[in-house]
């Protein structure tokens, strides 16, 4: 158990500041299957959210809607003041401002680590190669693997690959980062190095949404924990409240299952 000394003061907020993400009455179906049901969620700039819930509850689908890797059918999603629509140009612009880290890393296996990091800055941000490489090396140092710049993803361990994936997202200077179970494909001894990188990122004030079952991480960095079940947001609370006094039967059941 982490001590209560880690309790953070919530970030100061100007009420006129638009939220980073706003979902209102959002619904999504896969054919007849109602995956996301009336999602209402506002995420403020600099806020860190941990999303948890049983398998198949729609956590991945929800965060993939935020950068439109999935389309929603009803309701509104507004990211940094821009409503997500079918305008392809605009979607690419919004996506370039949202970093995403995947469960299975999804590095580009045919490119070196450095090329993985510079690809989008060069082709999307139109950055010069030299400058993109400088930025890439900066972030590789931050995730503590600058010496692997010229190797290929297949030559790295899982933990190293996931840290490269985080650095790749950071190279685009995103305003928001989405994590989809970033540690659940890793061997246990590599989980900590990735979580440490994420904690450091959180301390820098990045807006983060993280699907994870690492409850220690949730206690340490989350401002709010969102609990989902069967496509609904069942409960949303500060980590200490959520873990000590879960309000719903389903949350209690879930916590009992993952904490034993």
């Amino acid at each position, binding site marked *: 158990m982490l001590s209560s000394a880690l309790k953070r003061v919530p970030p100061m907020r100007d009420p006129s500041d638009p939220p980073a993400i706003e979902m209102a009455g959002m619904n999504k179906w896969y054919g007849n299957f109602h995956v996301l049901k009336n999602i209402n969620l506002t995420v403020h700039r600099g806020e860190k959210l941990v999303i948890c819930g049983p398998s198949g509850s729609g956590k991945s689908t929800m965060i993939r809607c935020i*950068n439109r*890797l999935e389309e929603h059918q009803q309701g509104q999603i507004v990211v940094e003041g821009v409503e997500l629509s079918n305008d*392809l140009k605009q979607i690419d612009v919004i996506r370039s401002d949202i*970093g995403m880290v995947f469960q*299975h890393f999804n590095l580009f296996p045919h490119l070196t680590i450095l090329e993985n990091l510079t*690809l989008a800055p*060069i082709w*999307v941000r139109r950055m010069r190669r030299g400058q993109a490489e400088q930025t890439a090396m900066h972030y590789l140092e931050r995730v503590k693997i600058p010496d692997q710049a010229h190797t*290929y993803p*297949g030559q790295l361990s899982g933990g190293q690959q996931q840290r490269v994936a985080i650095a790749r997202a950071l190279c685009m200077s995103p305003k928001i980062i989405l994590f989809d179970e970033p540690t659940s494909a890793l061997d246990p001894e590599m989980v900590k190095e990735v979580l440490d990188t994420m904690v450091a990122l959180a301390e820098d004030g990045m807006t983060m949404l993280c699907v994870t079952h690492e409850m220690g991480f949730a206690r340490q960095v989350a401002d709010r924990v969102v609990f989902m079940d069967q496509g609904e947001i069942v409960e949303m609370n500060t980590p200490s409240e959520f873990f000590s006094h879960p309000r719903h039967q389903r949350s209690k059941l879930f916590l009992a299952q993952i904490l034993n």
Partner: protein
Amino acid sequence: MLSDARTRSIIIQCALVAVAAAFAALLVSTTFANLRARGIPIGFDFLTMPSRIVISEAILTYKSRDPYYWAIATGLANTVFISAVVIVFSSALGLVVGITRLSSNPLAAGTCRVWVEVARNSPPIVLLIFLYSLWWKVLPPVGEALNPLPGVYASMRGFVVPAVSMDVATPGLLVIALALALAAAGWAAARRRWLPPLTAPAILAVGIAGLWLADAKFFVDWPTFTGSNFKGGKDLTPELSTILIGLIIYTTGFVAEIVRGGVLSVGRGQWDAGHSLGLPRGKILRLIIIPQMLRVIVPPLNSQYINVVKNSTLAIAVGYPDFLAVMNTIISKSSHSIEGVFIILGVYLALNLSLSSAANWYNRRIAIVER
């Protein structure tokens, strides 16, 4: 010692080679003895004799006074030309058609699907005969030739297109520049698995600079219509056009399927990663998907290329003198059938083995590094 796996395998292989060689030697010596007994001449001396056969059209310059070996070379050049043109065009078209089949636009995807199904399910010879019969049904006589593009005419007698020729003042310099450009390409390919954006323009620049330094002049000979015929330009006869267009349509169908399989073989996660970085679809294809699918599609693509070489023998159906057709004429004219068959087998074997080794080399080049 015989229990050592490697030694044993070497001994077995040597034994097999020895048996095969002995069998071949027996076959050859018996054949030769029999032929000699019957008074049939055998040997390759005839190759230097004047052939007196007619080759209706050729990429090289050929006259019927030329010796047999030049007739063979002329047929070979025709086959290599057909194969090369078909391979280049059907690769490019197959890439486009294969990718378009996966597009979300139903009309575009459907059109490409029809192409693939027609090409894959019709015997190529039927396609060729059908196309050949179209020349007289669809295209107008020479007097009313269509002019779809400036300098391009189409009529019953085939296409007439502008001819490009080059005159080089100092060929040495050009050779040096081309060698430099090739070396640069080789160096880039050896250093990087995937050519960085600026490599291709740089190589092109070296080539163009070489052309300029060598004072090369290009001449374009535009065809002109004289009322009853064309002057200048280059003729593409109905026969050559049919075999080229037919085989391109046919092969594109197969290449497109291979490309589609290749694109699908790259996991969805790669698209997700590309999209999440803000890369548009076209750039994801070009920078992420195509480079990864190449290593999957090169082996099946190579067998399609080999099929192109083999299918080029269907030229005989429309009367275009490809290598096989020329060899047939040579055999019946010279009655050196054994030698002729050996030459035919040797040439197709050599062509296809070179294609395979080029593909293998390329596949090793682009293999993905793993631990």
